[in-house]
């Protein structure tokens, strides 16, 4: 049960980022946990953390669902090209990866980003809030964004997306 309570919000929010709606994200959450539950041996600790494995499963499943939904829509209403669909999939994938990266980056980096972005503190105020030097505050903001920016790089075919550990 621990895996369900620990990862459910991660899975749901990743799926929501890709699919953009609650009911589809609910469905993905159920499918992912159903899979994890039925295939406890599928997880190989050598390939990275349980968390990154679950994130990878979620993303794969959500992107699959997105493609299916788009294809169904295309069949029904026409319009939309393959390029548009791929662009949409890429955007959704990058967004989900970014969410994952934010939740798994080192806490000091996340706190600095949180202060600067959500609470609109400048780096000097953030440094004071965190009781760190201004240099360190600048370093954390830059490093945090650098990590986040890897979500936008398009991985070569067949390799795992950044932020999810090694390829299966």
């Amino acid at each position: 049960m621990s895996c369900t309570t620990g990862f459910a919000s991660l899975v749901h929010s990743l799926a929501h980022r890709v699919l953009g709606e609650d009911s589809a994200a609910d469905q993905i959450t159920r499918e992912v946990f159903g899979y994890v539950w039925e295939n406890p041996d599928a997880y190989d600790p050598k390939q990275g953390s349980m968390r990154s494995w679950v994130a990878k499963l979620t993303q794969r499943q959500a992107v699959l669902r997105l493609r299916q939904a788009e294809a169904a829509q295309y069949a029904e209403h026409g319009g939309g090209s393959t390029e548009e669909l791929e662009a949409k999939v890429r955007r959704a994938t990058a967004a989900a990866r970014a969410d994952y990266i934010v939740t798994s980056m080192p806490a000091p980096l996340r706190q600095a980003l949180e202060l600067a972005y959500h609470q609109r503190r400048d780096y000097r105020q953030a440094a004071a809030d965190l009781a760190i030097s201004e240099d360190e505050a600048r370093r954390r903001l830059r490093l945090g964004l650098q990590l986040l920016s890897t979500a936008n790089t398009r991985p070569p075919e067949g390799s795992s997306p950044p932020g999810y550990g090694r390829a299966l």
Partner: protein
Amino acid sequence: MNGPAEQGPPLPDDENGTPRIPPPRRAADDIERLPSPEPVPQPVVRSHAVLKSLLGAWALTACSAEETEAVEAHLTECAPCADEALRLRDAVGLLHTDRSLDLDPLLRSRVLENCLGRRPARIPVPDWASAYDAEAARLDALLNDFGDAEWHAPVRLKWFEREQQVNRKTTVAGVIGHLMAVDGLVAAALGLDDPAGSGLPSGPTARTEAFWTSTRFPLTRAVREPWREQTHTLIRTVSFAGRGAAELAVPYGDFALPLQDALLDRAFECWIHAGDIAEAVDYPYDAPSGTHLHRMIDLAARILPDALAARRRAGLAPPPRQLVAAGAPGRSLRLEIEGAGGGVWHIALDSPAAVGSPDHEVAHIALDGVEFCRLAAGHVPPEDAAAGRLGDREAIRDVLLATASLSRL
């Protein structure tokens, strides 16, 4: 680029009309100590390194107006920084206001319901049952893609009996029926219902024959579900029973195994027969994981002294050369298994009561783990087993033959 002359403290409103926060103060104590009659605003010259360090804060609009301007001026003349600035700006676009991370409580219960519907509540599977769990799941996955043609494909089961390889023809469905019938021995020991039917004899071979003849028509794919259900029930039951059940005796007809060994034996059979099935329909099938393979080999190594004794009783092997007190080290063969799951075992040669010991080693064989298992499954004749052999030839021959004698239908 701004010339130095233009670079004073910025005005409260810049050319875009955006109010800027005031420029950074001069350090107050400096001003006090060095009161300057006319503080000439000197442009702060920042190094590339400092400007670069500001890129994150700049992208988040979290630096002073004056720093912002300095960074932007720098970007027009430094391509690497400009690249990075662009990337970091884009990254800011990926941040978003967090939705509540608390799940809808209804969703949580739906997730759990879904899981529980698919697999029995999973308290941890005991370590010693994990090989059986894994092998049953792997075989089930193999069967997943099978159509009727595969289910009825002929399979030749091979084993070793009275010093020779024998075989028997059945189908893929027949093999699953065989696995189910023999798993029923463990089910019976746990007081569970036997899906193969009641009143079956207690030896593995007799049970299988009885089950095969009890079905009036050849077995079909319909056998998969009861087989699978039984494997799940066994796993669930031993998981709930926990540690204490490990030593429970499982009668196999003319001998008995503790439950943990019986499940290892079942895992071994499941893998070997999955391999038979895969070969019959020309599918690839991997060996078990190293951990599981090691346990299976260990079981065979522990049983070998008994198998040697049984051969002596049957007059197939010469009498023991040297008898020692029970529990004392005796003449031993060093069994060296290579590859995943490998290791070294010392097999007591003269009596199951003796203890294998490196100090009393008279012979040494080395072979690959999978090859050893195929030998123990009767799939490789002992004389053909690819083994490195050193030392007492009679001991080596006895151990190889005894290993093959562990096999059965």
